[in-house]
């Protein structure tokens, strides 16, 4: 095993003192130092490193939408409450990005085969829902949500009349 790692090292290292390898090998190792233990440690840490990295990365991805929330808040404040092209574009973007993210959540997490993938997916989707909630709040403050009676006025049917009246002035 030690030879393998050493071979790896010699293959890729750009050491100019290549020729001194033999002398380095001739020296005895210091007391208490066993080369095998060092190698096994590195291997284990690398293995755990990799999995921990993957975990960390997937948590990053899961929490990304939540990190976008302050940025979105700021953009919403800048865009303003009037109905013109810029705010509507902003609201549209705020809506579409989370929606698209939710749609492609499965593919994003397919690569991650960590233990708590499901939890991360749920957190990711929740984060996107928070973003959508922000977009809805923006719509509400722009007055686009039909929450008031006047928004449903066009669908109010005129009441049916129970009595019919006819007549007028006497004709003669």
């Amino acid at each position, binding site marked *: 095993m030690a030879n393998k790692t050493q071979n790896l090292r010699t293959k890729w290292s750009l050491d100019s003192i290549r020729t001194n390898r033999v002398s380095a090998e001739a020296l005895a190792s210091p007391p208490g130092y066993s080369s095998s233990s060092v190698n096994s440690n590195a291997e284990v840490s690398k293995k755990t490193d990799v999995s921990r990295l993957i975990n960390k990365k997937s948590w990053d991805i899961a929490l990304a939408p939540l990190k976008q929330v302050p940025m979105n808040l700021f953009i919403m404040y800048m865009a303003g409450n009037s109905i013109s092209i810029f705010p509507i574009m902003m609201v549209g973007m705020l809506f579409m990005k989370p929606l698209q993210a939710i749609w492609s959540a499965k593919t994003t997490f397919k690569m991650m085969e960590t233990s708590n993938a499901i939890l991360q997916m749920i957190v990711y989707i929740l984060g996107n829902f928070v973003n959508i909630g922000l977009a809805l709040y923006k719509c509400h403050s722009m007055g686009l949500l039909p929450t008031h009676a006047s928004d449903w006025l066009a669908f109010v049917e005129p009441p049916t009349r129970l*009595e019919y009246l006819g007549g007028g002035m006497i004709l003669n």
Partner: protein
Amino acid sequence: MASFQSIMKKYPSLLVILLNFQTLLALYEDQVGKFDWKRSFIGKVKYAHFDASRIIVGTEENIIASLNMKNGNILWRQLMENPKEQQLMLLHSDRDLLSVSGTMNNWFVRTWDHQTGTLLSEWTIFSDKNIPSVFTVEKGTLLHIFPTQNSHLDVVTYNLDGNNQKNTIKIPAPWITDISNCVLSKSYYICISKNDISGQLYYVNILSEKPKVYIKTLHSVLGDTPDLIEILPFEDIFPAFLLSSNGQAKVIHVDEDVVNTKIFKVMPNAVSNHNGEKPFIYQLEPASNPDKLVQIRVKDYATCQDEMATELEYPVGLGAPIIIATATKNTLTDVLLSTTDNAFMLVRLSDGKIMWTREEALSNIIAVEFFELPVSELDASIENEFKASSNSILSMLSHRLNTQAKQLSTLIFGEHPMSSSGLVRDAFGLHKLIVVATSVGKLFAIDTLSGSIVWSYRLPNVKPFSILGEDKILLFAQRTARYAPLPAQCILIANDKYSGNGVIFQFDPITGYSQKGIEKLNYQIAQAIHLPYEDDQHLKPVLMISSTNEVYLYPSCAMGEVYKYTSKLYTYLVDNTGSFKGYSFIHSTKDKLKMTPSWELQLQPAKLVAVKTKHPNERVHSQGRVLPDRSVYYKYVNPNLIAVATVSDDPVHKHVLSVYLIDGVTGLILYATSHKRSRGPIHLVHSENWIVYSYFNERFRRTEFAAAELYEGHVQSNSSVFSSFAVSLLPHVQTQSYILPATPLSVTVTLTERGITNKFLLAGLSGGGVIEIPWLLLQPRLNDIPCSPEESCIPYMPEIPLPSEAVINYNQTIGRIDGIEVAPARLESTSHILVHGIDLFYTKVAPSKTFDMLKEDFDHMMIILVLTGLVISSYLTKYLASKKALKQMWK
């Protein structure tokens, strides 16, 4: 900004150009006449004179006009005062045209130019005698004769040669017993004392130096006749008159002491004509040939031999004619006839041909109804597909294949002659038929696209009802043309001229055909109600209430259907003393409808001026008004509301106008308001949840408009059902008032099918224009809501602006506007407008611009070309790009 102002100072022309930019709401010049038309009328002709190639006429509508002899078109027309106040008394054509028009106490004498109709001079005659008088012109003097019964003749002469010197002559004449037994001929005033042979003939020459009364016995003049004798005027170059007895008349000449009786007998309507080579007498008599109706007989004046009798091609529907004037030029004689139904025509005597006819009954329209035309046969067959009763797939398939084969054949081979009869509905339903009823009892149907008369029908012996001083005839559309093959049906309700009982005329408005003709009823009609319920024949029955409170149904077979609704029917009757009585039909039985009193209120001693309910076909689209805080202020829409306006005389405030809003089912007065020192004429408009009324404010001497709008509040009391008995709260009334800088003659509001478009008030002004005022300008502003364009609110202006683009009849002045009728078109954005008075004007109005139609010059071709071009180019580019990429990869 400072820079902008400096630019304006440097380039004043730029400023001028910019200031003149305004949104054009008016028509373009090439749009004139495209969707509007105007027909001018003059009224029933009373006097006519021939003058070169013109005919100068004076009519009963106090109008003088000059008509073209070839086609009867109006060359010029002068409208004088209102005929209800002043009548045309004389029209004399000499060097100048002289007209005398006036009432009992004062007259206007005017001279006009023959060619242009301009007023040359005008002076007035006053008199304090309250007796009817007669005018004539003789030897350059205008004679004004007041016959005082059993006493004397007062004659005032005016010298017409410039100085109008007045001279009064008094002739004692105790022999004048009855003015209807006297005639004026040239300068002789002739009377008969009694209508039978024992009477005496008295006559006097007014213009002689010493007027002497000559007395002759009728026996010596006429011989022995046992019948009643009548004296009639006769136009002649010598003083002459007709004595008629038993349908035949004799021409009598008088000349000082000599009374000359012509031997021959003529008809009482005979007219003499001296401007040909030989003097002739013309008279109308029934034709000997049963195919023709009327013939004109020409008699030689001197010898009284029958020269000839020409039969006229008299149209069947016209009333009985009388001859107004005749003229002979070279060998052609023209005769002007006026009929009892106000038509006016020119007849050329050589062949009895009627050159032209003017239907002057249309100058007095009193009822209007718009009718939709039936769909063309092809469209009807398409619609029938969906009504196919058989459910088998094969039959439906064969029907559809059949219809589509027909469509293909019409596309390739052109229109089938049957379907192009002309009276079919067009794409937007803008081709309609207007049925009008006139005061003389004649019905016309007018095409909206061209303005031509489609059919006319004369109803003999029919008299309109009189309500609040105005004539009225009821026209109800019982069935529209939608239910083919059942014909459309309209019903006309009027009074019989002689008995005073009601008269019903049921007819098909598209063709004018009536199956049953005029049906006379044996009771007097007090009111008629058009029910909104259809029977199985899709006919809406009419309920008629007699003056004795009996209820009749027409058609009576609909009783079973109507009985289901008697618990929901209510009616109200108003008599002209101001007492309102409401009735319900709850005690009706299956065979007989009975009316029982339900409520009563009395507005006496105020005088009723206007009673208005909403249009029965009106729909209210939005149930409330949206406020800036996005809450809804709900409207109070009561379909049973009656708006009443009364004017009362008051010692302190002179006249007081009171306006009441009364619920017609319970009799509850919802709103009452009064304006002191205000008098009529009052024009009241009632629509949706508001009323607008105009009155004359005597204190400030201006016409004002007041608007009142009713609201329920922020919560709807009952959103599903409206009942007049369920009064949970009284409506809030918002009012506001404005000044109108013109005098309105008639005010209406536009009506659309669904009630979505804005409303315009159309006011016909005394100047002859019809102005449109947006309702948003008159809507009462709410106090706590700021008014800005975002809330579709125009800030309050106390004076209503009348820009000239708002006049819908641009430069087509309409004389004496009587009424404006509105009908919804099938397009939501447009309404049909018919303005009637002396003239008739039709146009279409789109208050919110035509939002549901593409504009007229929409470039279909260009869009199609551009689209196809782009599609082709995109495919081409894709192909070329792929070729290039392929080539690139080979490098």
